[in-house]
């Protein structure tokens, strides 16, 4: 079934790249190209062939990991993605971690103090967090923490001084991890300081989502008979809340977490260029300005694959719950 969906995704991206209003061959040949050069570029890109043949070539290339050439950077899109993906993935994972660390306790306390002041504040905060435009909060954070407090850097992944030192480790592409395993704490600290603002910006949405989901799952579970039974045995409220109830509410919460990673990935598209973060979000923003369709479609296919994988993981997590197993 996933294969059919995948073929559908590939077909839609193929249609989008082929019905674009501008001529990719003319763009590839350059602004001052002669008609002969444009015709040569058309043959080079395989755009002179009939559509079914073009689609077959497109699919064959995709299977081989070839996403075409970027019209802007003139590199294979796959190579560009390999350079930019780790920075985005690192940011998304750190933001998700932050969302879990804040969202889960917030949800648990809200459920415990249902309809009390903490619950109202927390509900307002979680709905507020999903209502904030990420691109705007990014500017606001830069203004406060960079311009007014001069406490955190404006953007980038490391400071210019660090990059001039020239010994930035590149093993996995995850700078925090690489600098830790090479024992380079100066770079680690610098990279972490650069990550704080973009991480908070894109974590706000999943924090709200995780807190709300945990709250509703906990509320449902706290009304169950087995919780009443545990209370009547005299177990401590903390043990009931943090062990017995939390364990059963993790199913729906982890589903939301996997899905919210997808949302977080999307928010990077609006936020990365503001923070000058060298990830696929900034890459796609620049590609939009340059109307670089192969690059936009490369990112689209990559994101759709991530989305499908995350949905699959969410389904797997649900099926791990013995109550759902058939």
């Amino acid at each position, binding site marked *: 079934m996933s294969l059919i969906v995948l073929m559908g995704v590939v077909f839609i991206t193929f249609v989008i790249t082929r019905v674009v209003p501008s001529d990719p061959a003319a763009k590839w040949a350059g602004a001052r190209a002669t008609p002969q050069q444009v015709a040569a570029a058309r043959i080079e890109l395989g755009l002179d062939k009939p559509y079914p043949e073009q689609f077959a070539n497109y699919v064959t290339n995709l299977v081989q990991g070839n996403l075409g050439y970027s019209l802007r950077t003139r590199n294979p899109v796959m190579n560009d993605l390999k350079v930019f993906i780790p920075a985005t993935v690192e940011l998304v994972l750190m933001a998700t971690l932050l969302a879990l660390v804040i969202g889960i306790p917030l949800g648990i306390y809200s459920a415990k103090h249902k309809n009390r002041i903490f619950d109202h504040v927390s509900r307002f905060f979680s709905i507020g967090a999903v*209502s904030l435009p990420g*691109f705007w909060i990014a500017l606001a954070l830069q203004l406060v923490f960079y311009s007014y407090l001069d406490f955190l850097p404006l953007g980038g992944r490391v400071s210019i001084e660090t990059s001039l030192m020239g010994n930035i480790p590149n093993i996995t592409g995850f700078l925090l991890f690489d600098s830790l395993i090479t024992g380079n704490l100066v770079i680690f600290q610098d990279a972490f300081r650069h990550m704080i603002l973009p991480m908070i910006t894109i974590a706000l949405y999943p924090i709200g989502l995780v807190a709300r989901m945990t709250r509703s799952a906990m509320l449902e579970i706290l009304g169950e008979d087995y919780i009443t039974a545990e209370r009547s045995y005299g177990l401590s409220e903390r043990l009931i809340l943090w062990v017995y109830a939390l364990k059963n509410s993790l199913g729906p919460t982890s589903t939301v977490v996997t899905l919210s990673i997808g949302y977080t990935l*999307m928010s990077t598209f609006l936020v990365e260029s503001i923070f000058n973060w060298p990830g696929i979000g900034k890459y796609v923003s620049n590609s*939009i300005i340059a109307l670089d369709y192969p690059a936009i*479609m490369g990112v689209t296919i990559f994101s759709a694959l991530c989305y499908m994988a995350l949905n699959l993981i969410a389904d797997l997590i649900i099926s791990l719950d013995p109550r759902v197993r058939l």
Partner: protein
Amino acid sequence: MFKNMISMNTLAPKIKEAKLSFYLLNKNILTRAALITVLLLILVAIFALYIAPFPEHIFLGNDPANSLNPPSWKNLCGTDELGRDIFSRILYGTSISLRAAVTAVFFAVTIGSFLGAVAGSVGGWLDELIMRVTDIFLSFPPLLLSISIVALMGPSLNNATLAIVVSWWPWYTRLMRGQAISVKEKQFVKAAEAIGTSRMKIIFKHIVPNCISPIIIQASMDMGAVILSLAGLSFLGLGAQPPTPEWGLMVSTSKNYFMNAPWYSLFPGIAIFITVLSFNLLGDGMREILDPKTRKN
């Protein structure tokens, strides 16, 4: 006479139900505040041209001598780089954002619900076909699909709205199909089938009205997210184009000045936040009172 009595009998509980729902909606202080804000926003959207202090500043009004003035009694939210009154532009922006969002949600709901109702009620190969196409669209991240579509069609607010419709309808199809599958097994649908009512009539007269409540809840909750997406597309330069006073576009333009003129970014952002927050709180409140599972709580 007899017919009228029947309709009165069936209408009375519905009015009672609506009154109870409104009472519950009004009881929660956050939801009540959200409801009032949404009503105010609608009024502002309708009368923006009449209440804006500088209606001539909404689109053009080039006044470099007054550019980037901080907030004052004359210009409540300050002025932008062309000396235009930001407050007047924000007021007018309400109608642009609300109109685009309502249009997007309306078409997404209509298309999605229709396909979902047909898929769920008819079943068989048609159901399979509709749901596979839905799955394909659902596997695209909505914002990215919108970006690709607008990049293809050219940036404009109308194209951004259309792109949102294309990326949002599958959610309603899935929701409506699930509802339709459970409703079509109910006795009143079987009875309608038994007396030979046509399939289309069963779908639109019996199945859809009984599935619409979760769709309305979802639509009200999606309004906020759609406004955010539209603002995001405009921020990327793919939605509204200058000199349209769209909020996302205003924040995008203010990027170049925000270190020296923070009010320029601040106020359009607050407008987006308040609008989205109100719709989200209202949607959340509606879900709590209309959903039978949470209603009693």
